[in-house]
Structures are given as structure tokens and as C-alpha cells.
């Protein structure tokens, strides 16, 4: 033939506005304001933790794909870089480098590659790494540098408790919430992000802005973030109404810890979340319930990571029972 023509099934055009790489890049861009803000708050430690986490996650992915699975590494889909970044957002800024390396190895190696790589993991890889670290290095993972205090220090940064930690410890010792509230930042400070905690638990404001960007780019839908934050707010509020001296107010519940980060960036991970809007709402609802249960009655002051991981395991079940209605089958609507 003089001019060979391509032959394939339809469709012959493709929507190039969304690719795996572009989606991952969008999530990274959406996280960027919060990342930069953590650099401002925690200085050199935050920069070291973030760079090491991202670089090592990509390196582990490359090494495992090439030498263990013997296949073409796909580091340019940016999914490993995103996992590394999310992990960094979930740890304190004074975490030693070797612990970060262990954490990213577990996240990528166990959380992702052992299941078959991109798209196959049952659990959110970054959270697998984070929870592994929390259990293995309980002290290092719960010593929180105080924001703006020691920006030029890394391992020797001055540490303090998180607002959630203060409340949990205080209530356990029989103190009243109204007294404890004086020991922690105000709600407004929390909203802007001036409090102790992991890198990415800081600015609710910036995380919400990132979430809005993801909504506009149609990377995520509103269902999971709204159902998680809404449930934490309502369930937390219910407890607060019952006993305001024992349970913190609902605004405190959603502004502290990893609720914003988890609801907007972690629970919305495609692979480990349900497919349909109803499934997403159910998923988010139970995460919200679990977060509050763990916070108020569990051993840890914070429960977002555990709540998301537990619900990850239910995703296949949720998907099975929330299938979309097939056109022309039961549940007909009104006709004219």
C-alpha cells in the first residue's frame, strides 16, 4: 500500500485532558501550598523529610520494578512520587532519615508493589507506610516539633504535644475540656495551621484550597471529603452536645489531626476507594464514624489513618453492593 492507514475499533478520538500522569501531577500541585507552608512552619526538617520521602519512594519503585519484578519501571506516572509526598505529609518534621527510608520501602514495597503495582493495591500505600512507622517507631512518630520555634533544627527540634494529644491526655487525667482549651491554639489558628503535628496536618485552609482545585480539575468528586468531614462534624457534635466537658467541640474535631488531609487527599485515592457516588458516601460515612470512635475511645489520640485503612478493606464489598443501575432494568422512574 502506498500509504498505510491505521485500523482500530472505535472510538477514534480520546480525551487527553486526563491521563494517569496528569491526575497524579494535579494531586501533587494541589498539595503544594500545604507542603510549602509546612516548610515555613518547620523549616529545614520539613524540607529534609519531604525530599527524602519523595526521592526514596521513587527509588524503591524503580529498584523493585527493575530488579525484583523485572519489568519496565513506571516512575514517570508520578504515582510513587505522590505516595512519597503523602507519606511525608503524615510524619513529624524531625523524623530521622533511616526511618523515612523504612517507611517508604514499606509503603511502596508492601503497600503497592507486592499487590502488583499501580492500580492493584487494596490499601492506601502511604498509609500502610505511615501505620507501619507509627507502630514500629512510636516515640519518634509522636514527638511533634513546635511550629515556628526551631526552623533551623532538624533532629534536635523543640517538640510539644498536638492539640488532640493534649485533649486526650487531659481528659484521661480527669481534666475538663474548657480548661484544656487554654493550653492549645485557637480554632482560627488551627484553621490557618499554627499548631503541632505532622507536616500535612497543618493548614486546613490550604488543604481545602487544594481540594477545590482537585474538584475543578475533576480529579476527585465531593462525595468522599464531604461525607468524612460531615460525619466527623456531626458525630463529634453529637458527643459534644451530650457532654461538652468530656468531648471537644465539632469544629475542633475537623480542624485537628489528619481529617482534612485524610478526607481530601488520602481517602480519595482512586484505587482504594469505591467507584460509585453512593459507595463513596458510605465509605466516607464509616471513615468518619471510625475516626471519632478511635479518637474518643481508642488508645491513640488520632485515628484517621486507621479509619481509612480499615475502610479500604471494605471497598470491594461496597463496590459489589453499590453498582450503578443498568439502563432498562428495575426501578423505573415516572413516564410521560
Amino acid at each position: 500500500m502506498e500509504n498505510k492507514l491505521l485500523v482500530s475499533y472505535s472510538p477514534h478520538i480520546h480525551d487527553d485532558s486526563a491521563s494517569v500522569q496528569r491526575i497524579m501531577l494535579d494531586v501533587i500541585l494541589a498539595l503544594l501550598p500545604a507542603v510549602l507552608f509546612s516548610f515555613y512552619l518547620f523549616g529545614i526538617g520539613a524540607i529534609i523529610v519531604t525530599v527524602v520521602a519523595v526521592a526514596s519512594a521513587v527509588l524503591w519503585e524503580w529498584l523493585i520494578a527493575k530488579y525484583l519484578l523485572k519489568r519496565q519501571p513506571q516512575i514517570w506516572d508520578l504515582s510513587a512520587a505522590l505516595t512519597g509526598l503523602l507519606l511525608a505529609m503524615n510524619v513529624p518534621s524531625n523524623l530521622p532519615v533511616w526511618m523515612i527510608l523504612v517507611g517508604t520501602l514499606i509503603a511502596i514495597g508492601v503497600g503497592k508493589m507486592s499487590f502488583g503495582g499501580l492500580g492493584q493495591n487494596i490499601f492506601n500505600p502511604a498509609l500502610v507506610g505511615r501505620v507501619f512507622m507509627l507502630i514500629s517507631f512510636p516515640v519518634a512518630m509522636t514527638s511533634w516539633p513546635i511550629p515556628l520555634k526551631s526552623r533551623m533544627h532538624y533532629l534536635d527540634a523543640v517538640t510539644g504535644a498536638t492539640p488532640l494529644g493534649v485533649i486526650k491526655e487531659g481528659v484521661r487525667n480527669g481534666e475538663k475540656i474548657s480548661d484544656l482549651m487554654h493550653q492549645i491554639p485557637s480554632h482560627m489558628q488551627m484553621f490557618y495551621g499554627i499548631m503541632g503535628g505532622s507536616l500535612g496536618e497543618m493548614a486546613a485552609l490550604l488543604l481545602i484550597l487544594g481540594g477545590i482545585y482537585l474538584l475543578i480539575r475533576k480529579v476527585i468528586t465531593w462525595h468522599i471529603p464531604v461525607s468524612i468531614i460531615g460525619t466527623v462534624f456531626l458525630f463529634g457534635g453529637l458527643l459534644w452536645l451530650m457532654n461538652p466537658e468530656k468531648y471537644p467541640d465539632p469544629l475542633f474535631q475537623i480542624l485537628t489531626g489528619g481529617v482534612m488531609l485524610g478526607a481530601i487527599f488520602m481517602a480519595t485515592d482512586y484505587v482504594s476507594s469505591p467507584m460509585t457516588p453512593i459507595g463513596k458516601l458510605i465509605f466516607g460515612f464509616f471513615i468518619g464514624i471510625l475516626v471519632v470512635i478511635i479518637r474518643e475511645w481508642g488508645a491513640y489520640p488520632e485515628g484517621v489513618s486507621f479509619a481509612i485503612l480499615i475502610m479500604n478493606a471494605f471497598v470491594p464489598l461496597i463496590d459489589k453492593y453499590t453498582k450503578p443501575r443498568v439502563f432498562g432494568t428495575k426501578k423505573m422512574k415516572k413516564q410521560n
Partner: protein
Amino acid sequence: MSEYKLLTFPKGGVHPPENKLTADLAIERFPLPSKVYIHLQQHIGVPAQILVKPKDRVRTGQLLAQAQGFVSANIHSSVTGTVFKIDEIYDASGYRKTAIVITPEPEDEWVEGIDTSDDLKADIGQFSSQEIIQKVKDAGIVGMGGATFPTHVKLSIPDGKKCDILIINGVECEPYLTSDHRLMLEKTEEILVGTRLLMKALNVDRAVIGIEANKPDAIGKMTEAAKKYEGITVQALKVKYPQGGEKQLIKAITGREVPSGGLPIDIGAVVQNVGTTFAVYEAVMKNKPLIERIVTITGKDLDHRGNFRVRIGTMVKDIIDYVGGLPEGTGKVVLGGPMMGKATKTLEVPVGKGTSGILLMRREETKRKKVLPCIHCARCVTACPQGLEPYLIMSLAERGIWDKAEEAHAQDCIMCGSCSYVCPSNRPLQDYTQFARNTVMSIMRARKKK
């Protein structure tokens, strides 16, 4: 657009760039080619039985091959000339099929009784329902939106069923294509007469002409012309692919859903494309068989795009040569639109009754990209207008688990391609869903026979 209340189907759909590059170009008559290649099967069903042999002289409009059985369609000569040979020629499906090759004479000599003038004939009084259906059958009319299902079959309502609404499909939701759009602008009155004929054939008193909101001129013109006739209205529809899918169109206009595995007539609806409706007008009022159709020839790099009235059997190559030849960098030639059309491997393929357009695509705009793993983003699930889970059906089809594919309703796929279009991992979802659909349907048929 605020003056119209726009209707649409409720779930799924995508918004591919419209690229209606030929919307403003009036229909031109395409010159007689040096040979025409008329396939015996240009419809769904049984191929027609050939009536002529080589060296026979045939006239324009003469019956060349007779429908065999109920689901089949007559084939007529689109030119006056001599039968050169009977040969196996590629058709849009990519297979060689029997075709009658005719060498045309420069002047048409029409079969007597055919009115070849452009005068409008609007008096439908004298025809009965039976006569209309018989004339449609004689004229070899099939669905011209691309499905090519014989029209007389669709008009013959089975016992026990009743039709209460006729829907004329002027949606043309496929990007690039404009043949229906031009027809509605230039043959407005004829389409309305055709609509009335179809209403009479079906014995219904209500017809709705559905047009996508991106054709305000056609909506305006058709609405104005329809005012004269009781029972015919024009409904503007939201621009969303696949708005012109039969099931989606019925749902948008009536709120009714064709049941899974059923036909539109099960819920009292019959849908006909505007091109078909115009052909019905010509067949009944002018005694003219289906020997030509409007074809959009388009592509981003083509200088002489257009909407041509082409004789059935004209080679695609002749049409492309006429508009200046294949542009540099052309990677794919699609018969039909970019979402559901068929890519042809050769230009030596004739225009058939279902060829709505010829689309020349640049190599880089149509070349498939590297397939990545499914990341469960649910875009295919959101896009599917049929409420299916294409990612799941693909994975079942890859592993050949057909019972599960049936449970997942693969057989309800309408092959609109929305799933493949949106997939960020470039997965061939439509390829596999189509494979699953066909396999499951043949299993279901075999089970029924037992």
C-alpha cells in the same frame, strides 16, 4: 439557548470536541464516478438476491437485487450503465462482500415513474399505512444514521404491541458529521412530509423531532415549519454524546426506558433518523428508491470539505480525490463519525446506505497511546450512559468469564465508546466491552434455541 427547555438522558455521557467543520457548507451534488460498486448487503439482515448479470444494461433506479426474507432490503442501481462484473469488494466492515460493479453512462436514464424534480409534494392524503410501508420496502430504505436496519421492519408493528410516539432523530451527536444538519436546513418541508408519512404508517398522532442545541438554525427552521402540522413538535436537546443513541433519545424525550434486551416498540416508541425520513418522503411521494445519500467529507487538514449528495456505490477514493486527495500526515480514514465510525484499511471501499461521513484523521490525533493499568478512577463508570461498569466487563472479557460478563450486563452495551474516550490509562475498554457484548449475545441466542 435559554428559549428552549433542553432535555437530555440522565446518566453518563461525554463531551468530545464537536468539530462540525462543514456545518455551513450547503449540500453539493457529487459528480458521477467512472465506476460504481453496489454491495448486495448494505443492511442488517440477509443479503439481497442478485437479479442482473454482467453486460446487462441497467437504468437509474432499477432493481438490481431483491430482498430475501423479511429482514433484508432491496438494492437498486444508482446509475444508468452496463454491469461490468460481479466481484468481491471491501465494505466498511473490512471484509470483501459481493458487489455489482457498473460502468455508468454520462446521462441518467431513470426508470419510468420516478419524479426526479426538486418540487415539494406534500399531499399525503391518498396513501394508506400498508401502501406506505410497501413503498418503503420497495425502495430498499434502511436506517441511515448508521445502523442500517431495514426500515419497513421497524414500521411493521408486531401483534400485541402498540406505538404511540414517533421520534425523528436529528440529534447528530457524533463530532464532525453534518449531513443530517444540512438536510434539516435544506429539506425541511420534505422531512416534515416524511414525518407525516411515518406517522400514518405507524398510525400514531404524535411525533417529536429531537435536535441537539448546537444546531439552533435547524431547531428554528424545523420548529417554524412544524407549526403547520398537528401532532409534530421539535424538541431541543442538550449537547451531550451519545444523545442520538436510540435508547438515550427516547429516555430524554419521553422519560421511558427501553427494557434491557427489549426494543423501543416495547415501550411504544419508534425512532427514525432524519436522513431515513427524507428517504421515506422520496420513496413514497416521488417513487424514488434509495440510490443516493448525503455524505459529510471532513478532516482538519482537508481544504475542500463538504456535504455531498453521493450515489450509492461511489468509491471513497473517488470522493477523496475529488476534494484534493489524502492530506499529508493522514493516519486514519473513518467511515462515519469518530466515536462509532469504522476505520477502513483501504480507500477502495464504496459508500453504502449507512455511510454518513468520511473522516480523515491526522495520525497523531488518532494513534492509540500506551495502555496503563486501571487505576479505578471510575471515569468509565460515570461516562457509561447504560449504567455499566466497563472496567469490570473488560477484565471479565480478558479472562473469558462470560457468565459474569452477562451478569454485568455486557449485552446492554450500545457501543458508544464513551468509556474508551475518557479512560486516563488509555485502556481499550470499548474493544473488550464490544467483544463481551457480542460473545454474551451469541451465548444468549444459543441458549434460547435449546
